[in-house]
């Protein structure tokens, strides 16, 4: 009597019933594994530690302190309430002028005030997620394409393609030269598109890179600008991790390149995506920004921003916070210092056991090289290893294949979304896994020659496992499991 599934599917759109949302990717699978068994130092010490979420949780104390000392920044306190009506009523898609001014000011600060940003070119969006989709709608028609260097953030497949019909074409980058974006690779990708009759409308880069954590050097940035200018295609620069750069080489924004004298470029091709989700640690506030040097794009994007404006309550808070230059300078410096310390602790800890990561100077994660632990240099082996890491080592990390990495064995591991003690636990688990894996390799080798050795080694690894369990009973917790999120 009821409709069959195919009938139901016909009732809905292809977009709704297809897989374009990309949530079948292992990137999200790991999240689900964490959600069903989340680590807690006392309540669930054997749970999965979340290392797949690029969040910046190291500097909230600074922000909390600021919020407490500035009650007027909230429209709901006694100090700020007189503005409640005007703010709650304000739905102009230009955004509160003080918000745009503060964001422009902050973006300049983050870039060491080497460049300034025009508040009138700032367009709001529903996070960087909304910003990317919006730009795709503005710059490309269905079937047209953006070039994207690999590896790249998995959700771009959803953000840029799902509802827009735009395609993403990979630009090959390899580990032998640290995944540098080369002119040759760009040309190659472009030519492939031409041959396949796909019109390329732009190139999208994330700088600092997710998942690599590296920054683009000046020469590379210039060569990108030259390339897009020659081809007359757009360049979208996602600079969402701009303030997470904690050491040399430092961050160079595309905005700086445009100011260089010898750089010749049609500025109307350049667009920046930004957000406060990573630099400030505010993903819940949904503050996304599109900054375009192209007036027509600013106009169009502004109209489209109706679909994802920033809550004026939040605009007001952000405007207040980010115009406090003294606080901003202090925050940026301290946040970078803490990220540097955490990154160092993590990478040094890993290196002690012979686990290396790509050398990086920013981001909230490391790009870990585990190819030694692959049974064979294939993506199937990478998936098998990943499942061991999730289900046995109990760490949610993100496999390189979900980032479209062309080489198996790389994993993105986040380090800024937990406290020191949890990080120690995670490190210990990794160390133990690495050791066990080495031992297992030795055992396997020896087993070929002398079978009777195996029981001794098993008891050795058994002892190691109980030490493993002790370590996991760390009493300190990161942010306690949020009662706001009820695991189902």
């Amino acid at each position, binding site marked *: 009597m009821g409709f069959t599934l195919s009938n*139901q599917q016909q009732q809905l*759109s292809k977009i709704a019933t297809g897989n374009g949302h990309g949530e079948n990717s292992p990137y999200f699978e790991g999240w689900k594994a964490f959600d069903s068994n989340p680590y807690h130092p006392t309540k669930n010490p054997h749970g999965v530690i979340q290392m797949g979420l690029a969040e910046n949780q190291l500097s909230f104390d600074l922000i909390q302190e600021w919020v407490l000392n500035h009650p007027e920044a909230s429209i709901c306190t006694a100090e700020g309430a007189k503005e409640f009506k005007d703010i709650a009523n304000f739905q102009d898609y230009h955004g509160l002028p003080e918000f745009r001014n503060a964001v422009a000011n902050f973006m300049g600060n983050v870039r060491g005030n080497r460049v300034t940003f025009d508040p009138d070119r700032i367009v709001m969006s529903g996070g960087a997620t909304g910003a990317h989709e919006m730009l795709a709608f503005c710059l490309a028609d269905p079937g047209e394409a953006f070039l994207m260097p690999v590896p790249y953030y998995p959700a771009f497949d959803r953000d840029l393609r799902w509802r827009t019909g735009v395609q993403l074409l990979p630009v090959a980058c390899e580990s032998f030269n640290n995944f540098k974006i080369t002119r040759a690779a760009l040309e190659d990708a472009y030519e492939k598109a031409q041959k396949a009759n796909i019109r390329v409308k732009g190139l999208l880069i994330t700088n600092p890179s997710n998942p690599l954590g590296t920054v683009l050097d000046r020469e590379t940035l210039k060569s990108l600008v030259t390339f897009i200018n020659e081809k007359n295609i757009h360049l979208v620069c996602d600079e969402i991790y701009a303030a997470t750069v904690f050491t040399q080489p430092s961050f160079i924004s595309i905005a700086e390149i445009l100011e260089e004298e010898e750089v010749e470029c049609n500025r109307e091709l350049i667009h920046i995506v930004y957000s406060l989700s990573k630099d400030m640690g505010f993903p*819940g506030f949904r503050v996304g920004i599109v900054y375009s040097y192209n007036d027509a794009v600013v106009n*169009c994007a502004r109209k489209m921003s109706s679909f994802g*404006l920033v809550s004026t309550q939040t605009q007001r808070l952000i405007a207040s916070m980010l115009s406090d230059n003294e606080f901003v300078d202090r925050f940026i410096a301290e946040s970078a210092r803490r990220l540097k310390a955490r990154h160092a602790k993590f990478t040094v800890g890993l290196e002690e056991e012979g686990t290396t990561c790509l050398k990086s100077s920013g981001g909230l994660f490391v790009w870990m090289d585990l190819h030694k632990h692959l049974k064979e240099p294939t993506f199937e082996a990478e998936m098998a290893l990943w499942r061991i890491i999730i289900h046995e080592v109990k760490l949610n990390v993100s496999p390189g294949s979900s980032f479209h990495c062309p080489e198996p064995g790389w994993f993105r591991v986040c380090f800024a979304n937990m406290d020191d003690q949890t990080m120690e636990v995670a490190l210990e688990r990794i160390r133990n896994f690495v050791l066990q894996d080495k031992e297992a390799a030795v055992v396997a080798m020896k087993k070929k020659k002398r079978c009777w050795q195996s029981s001794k080694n098993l008891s050795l690894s058994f002892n190691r496992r109980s030490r493993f369990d002790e370590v996991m009973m760390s009493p300190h917790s990161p942010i306690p499991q949020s009662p706001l999120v009820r695991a189902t």
Partner: protein
Amino acid sequence: MCMLSRKATCNSHGQDSSYFLGWQEYEKNPFHEVRNTKGIIQMGLAENQLCFDILKSWIANNPDAAGFKRNGESIFAELALFQDYHGIPEFKKALTEFMSEIRGNKVSFDPNHLVLAAGATSANETLMFCLANHGEAFLLPTPYYPGFDRDLKWRTGVEIIPIHCTSSNGFQITETALQEAYLEAQKRNLRVKGVLVTNPSNPLGTTMTRNELNMLVSFVDEKGIHLVSDEIYSGTAFSTPSFVSVMEILKERKCDENGSQVWKRVHVVYSLSKDLGLPGFRVGAIYSNDDMVVAAATKMSSFGLVSSQTQYLLAAMLSDKKLTKNYISENHKRLRQRQKKLVSGLQKAGISCLKGNAGLFCWVDMRHLLRSNTFEAEMELWKKIVYEVRLNISPGSSCHCTEPGWFRVCFANMSEETLDLAMQRLKAFVTEYYNVPEVNGHGQNSRLNHSRRRSLTKWVFRLSFDDRSPIPGR
């Protein structure tokens, strides 16, 4: 110059419509009670500014909710990090309970079937992405909210086919009009995926009758298509007949029991922008009984989530049942009074309107003031009203009304004094322009014959060039 997308370069954003042009004129010369008394009074913006005092007083008495605190402890970090597209559970629970309360608790809503969106703008667009493919169509009764041209069509590629409603029966939807619209779509080779209605109606300011709702449900059931009911004004139904939600109709028809599956194809859109007067906070929602729609819409909500800061504040506010009860009834009372004031002011100017019982506006009949029964004449009159009378109201053509001469006039976004002034200006305009005697309170006015009206038109134009304003100063 590099090409942008077709979406970027076309007009489908709908902002060339007079609806938005009037806004722009207002922006250039906005009325202010003290600073710019000759400015344009904004009557084209459906905002609810009548009950902020109630919300402000609640906030003053509930500092925790406002200040990122729970039991005095800061939860700033938790909120700042919360980006789960399922939303804060307490917020969705409070919102669904509020929606129930507005409907007299005759229906209940399951928070698991509620999807948050960045305003009704985003909710409507998301539903289109879920329910229709590029090139497919939705039927909408006219007149309808001008923003739908952007929200439903622009980026989705969905088409709107109008269901023509006329003043002959108070603009109610008839079976004939529905069938005609459906046939029109077929003639144009467009696959109809559903019907979208706004109930209470924008711009009519009326609630849909039980008859209309039943007819719609039967229609979409028979055709196997969707019904989207935008109930954004559900909390503004201030007088009888009372508001009936399509969800009530489904319940009465026991739709979830008889296996027809139509209940899965009825979806409700909601928002706090009108009922609570909080358009700046961007709180919208989609409610659907179809799990696949909920799943898809939830994923799509990534493009426009509600700020966790706002979710938290409103969760606390809407969970306070004393507040919601008081707010709903006080809101009705104040809207009713204010609407009455507008209607009587219009009557004094010899202008009548559609009898309305909801919304933040009246659907005003100025057909008798048109030079001719054409949209050109409507535009002419509208321009006079914007530039000479200095009132920004919305012409019916911008709402796709099929009959010229109707205007949407908002009443809840200004003070009483400003409304009084607007009515005075209007009355003076009608009196001078049409050279009619003072009208009595029963709304009688005499019509001019065409030739006399034409010469008057020339006279008024000369007057405006002579810099003599018909509008009394303050």
